[in-house]
């Protein structure tokens, strides 16, 4: 098979890599259960591991939101069965404040990091990068495997924190000190917080191992003819995502390490002038700054939201083009706007801190840079709209989720213009407006993008289709439900209703929304139930779904559909296909689609 390495011809590094891989294939044809399903180094299996772990987390995180929505919707009711399940956390059938805060904290942490970063990037970067650029596997399959197992380790530590006596971390997913630094200030800041920090540190390691791998694979291991400008937009998006993660996660880790020092080493990085009512004692720490942590946190925290949304944008762009049977409009503008977003992601973090006492001048700089992000975002939206225009649209479930994504991204993006404007942020900061904004633009959009990817690439992953009827029900209920849940929250936010309250009935300013809160809770539960339908569809279809019989079921141009229906480790049995064109030649010269592997014809028109 070494002839193939020569054909591949991308310089020495890659050649040796391929040779190594082919050896691997030859010598390990009889894989054991352990090497195939557990400690697998096949990027496709690792992708599935990320996906299924992410789904388990999504169910847990979603369940947490159902529990706290129960409290928010019915603050006066008691649910004795809750005490049966949760014990002291729901004494007398009422969720206790400590537990409520633990729930919202874990819900945020789980969804942001374990589902929408680990689950989304982990799945699709692993699955699509080698298949779409034409590589046998990642640059380092070993590191890739470790990336998953660090993620798994992080998951185990995080889950274990749910079972400690003082409860899991409960200072919000941002874990601002001093609250998160002082066990005496909050139960959740005792053992739970240490476990949270350890889990997050493991998560950062996982994310770095993965990210470095994605970057080196995309830069070094593209097949012959696959220039950077012939990459599908999915790969571009995953590339920028990985760069963002590699540059920003270490800063978060440093912030966490300082926090650990403050917790256990007696340092005063974040602590100063503190007297605790609980213990009736003044602490010795002086000279630290609680705001320092917020800078370090948001220096990751803001890029993090793009780490979530960029892969979704990439998946949606690809799926939209395939199912509109039209090239994605403005390929270079799409890449350019991804690049612009990635750069700006690092320059806007302090817009989360307009009301921390930040110097107003500094604030104004961040307003300008923040609102600048709206320009590349607008370009993307208009390009998606133009991609639909005069297409010939097939509403596959993936396409529905892609359209849903664009709708959500518009809605949530526009409210970002409110919050990025420091003047409005004074009133809207930390209210339900913020909840509505980031759930729509990051949470729901991210999840819809992820579903879009799952529905589109499920046939490639498992060689079977998901059930369409359940998929349609899943889409419409999720999509409409998400609007019903989050749209009215804007009004609560406009009234100044603060987030992270478990009961508003004693507040004259905010008790007018009792009915609305109940309505939102009911819809949230319905939407959650429909996600269970999806989970069922997913696992049922892995084993019993309709079999894929065509190698290219969506008539798509990209390379993964030139691999066998159920590709083995190494992806292509023979030579790696060569690429001659960009991936979006749909409807060109009267032809429905022209795969990337087809050489340019003599009389083909130029684009």
């Amino acid at each position: 098979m070494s002839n193939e390495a020569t054909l591949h011809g991308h310089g020495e590094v890659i050649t040796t890599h391929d040779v190594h891989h082919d050896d691997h294939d030859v010598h390990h044809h009889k894989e054991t259960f352990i090497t195939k399903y557990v400690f697998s180094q096949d990027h496709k299996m690792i992708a599935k591991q990320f996906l299924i772990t992410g789904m388990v987390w999504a169910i847990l995180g979603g369940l947490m939101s159902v529990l706290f929505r129960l409290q928010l919707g019915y603050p006066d009711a008691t649910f004795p069965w809750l005490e049966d399940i949760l014990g002291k956390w729901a004494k007398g059938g009422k969720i206790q404040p400590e537990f409520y805060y633990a729930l919202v904290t874990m819900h945020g942490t789980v969804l942001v990091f374990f589902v929408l970063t680990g689950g989304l990037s982990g799945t699709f970067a692993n699955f699509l990068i080698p298949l779409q650029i034409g590589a046998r596997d990642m640059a380092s399959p070993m590191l890739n495997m470790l990336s998953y197992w660090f993620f798994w380790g992080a998951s185990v530590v995080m889950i274990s924190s749910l079972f400690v006596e003082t409860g899991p971390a409960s200072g919000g997913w941002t874990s601002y000190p001093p609250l998160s630094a002082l066990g005496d200030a909050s139960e959740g800041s005792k053992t739970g917080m240490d476990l949270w920090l350890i889990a997050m540190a493991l998560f950062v390691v996982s994310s770095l191992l993965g990210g470095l791998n994605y970057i080196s694979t995309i830069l070094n291991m593209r097949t012959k003819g696959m220039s950077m400008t012939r990459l599908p937009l999915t790969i571009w998006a995953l590339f920028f995502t990985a760069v963002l993660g590699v540059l920003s996660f270490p800063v978060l880790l440093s912030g966490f390490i300082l926090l650990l020092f403050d917790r256990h080493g007696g340092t005063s990085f974040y602590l100063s002038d503190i007297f605790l009512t609980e213990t009736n004692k003044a602490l010795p720490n002086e000279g630290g700054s609680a705001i320092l942590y917020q800078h370090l946190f948001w220096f990751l925290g803001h890029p993090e939201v793009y780490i979530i949304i960029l892969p979704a944008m990439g998946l949606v762009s690809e799926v939209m083009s395939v199912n509109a049977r039209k090239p994605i409009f403005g390929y270079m503008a799409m890449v350019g706007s991804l690049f612009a977003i990635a750069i700006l992601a690092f320059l806007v973090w302090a817009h989360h801190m307009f009301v921390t006492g930040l110097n107003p001048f500094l604030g104004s700089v961040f307003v300008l840079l923040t609102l600048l992000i709206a320009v590349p975002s607008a370009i993307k939206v208009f390009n998606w709209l133009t991609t639909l225009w005069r297409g010939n649209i097939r509403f596959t479930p993936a396409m529905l989720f892609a359209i849903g994504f664009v709708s959500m991204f518009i809605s949530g993006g526009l409210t970002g213009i409110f919050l990025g404007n420091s003047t409005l942020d004074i009133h809207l900061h930390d209210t339900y407006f913020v909840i509505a904004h980031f759930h729509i633009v990051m949470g729901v959009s991210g999840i819809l993008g992820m579903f879009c990817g799952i529905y589109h690439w499920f046939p490639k992953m498992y060689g079977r289709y998901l059930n369409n009827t359940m998929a349609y029900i899943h889409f419409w209920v999720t999509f409409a439900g998400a609007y019903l849940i989050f749209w009215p929250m804007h009004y609560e936010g406009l009234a100044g209703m603060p987030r992270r309250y478990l009961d508003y009935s004693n507040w004259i300013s905010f008790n007018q929304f009792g009915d609305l809160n109940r309505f939102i809770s009911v819809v949230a539960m319905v939407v959650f139930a429909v996600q269970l339908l999806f989970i069922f569809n997913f696992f049922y279809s892995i084993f019993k779904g309709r079999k894929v019989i065509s190698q290219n079921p969506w008539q798509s141009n990209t390379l993964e559909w030139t691999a066998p229906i159920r590709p083995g480790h190494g992806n292509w049995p023979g030579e790696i296909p060569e690429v001659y064109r960009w991936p979006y030649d749909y409807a060109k010269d009267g032809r429905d689609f022209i795969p990337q592997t087809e050489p340019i014809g003599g009389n083909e028109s130029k684009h």
Partner: protein
Amino acid sequence: MSTIFLLLILLLGFLITFQIAKASEYVGVLKGEKKNFEQNNRINGFLMIVFLVLGLIGVYWCNELFRGKILGESASLQGEKIDTMLYITITITGIVFVLTQVLLFWFAYKYQYNEKRKAFYFPHDNKLELIWTVIPAITLTVLVGFGLYYWFNITGEAPKEALQVEVTGKQFGWIFRYPGKDNVFGKKYYQNISDKDGNTLGLIWDDPATHDDIVVQSEMYIVKDQPVKLIINSRDVVHDVGLAYFRMKMDAVPGTPTTMWFTPKYTTDEMKKKLGNPDFEYEISCDQMCGRGHYTMRGIIKVVTQDEFTLWKLKQKPNFVQVFPDKDPANPPKTDTTKGTAAVVNPDAAKMVVRR
């Protein structure tokens, strides 16, 4: 019991959905893949337009339902600017919202699959792309312009005649301090804090400026039409002074004082009449997660007239006098004090003055 019942219904719903889904898959195979696809496509295309229409109606209806509940007119002059900015932003984003959503769903509906239609090969158009880069950029410049104008206006220096109040957050309540007759806040040091001795802010009694400082809990009095400058502190974790009716907000950070100022427009009594709610109060809500009692961390601001304020202030005893009743000039000591001077009560205080 009802929970089990609900779960059973849910399970039944799942089973039925699953059976229907399975059956429709078989029917699809029997009908032929193409026919089945076309039928599904038509249904979803139709749902796109249904969703658009119902969605827009829903947005309008939601607005009708809730616009009366978002606290109405701002109760501070600065809040008016924030409201103006809000309406400018709502107008601009509202237009973009309707336009893009209509295009999205309309295109989806209009260009749904049709055997006869040929998709249009349209990979890029520099002119179009330039247009939708420049127009958003200009629009945003306008928004940034307005925003920063108001921002600097609101966050600028408070007027000299502003009433000064120090607000300190703690788990889970608010402490307010007025500078007293000398109009100077006396020095304080957090190591001096002692709830037991009544020195909740850690005032340094060696500094004579502390002697007339008034410290009150839970209710803060300010004057209508007079700007008020809040100097915001925290005793323990990060809190946030959230004033929904005044549209103001500022974090309380331990170790780093922050400030904010505003001019209240209506007294509490006027608001009671205006809103027709005799229970109305201006509330301070803690807007930054601060622990288990976060949601109960409520303070009250009483906006009163100048006369009422003067009267109220006269009735307040300085913190110093509360701690050392025998030092009250209005209430001379009955016996010779054995307590000694404040410095003796707190021998470290002198040192601390130097350190601060």
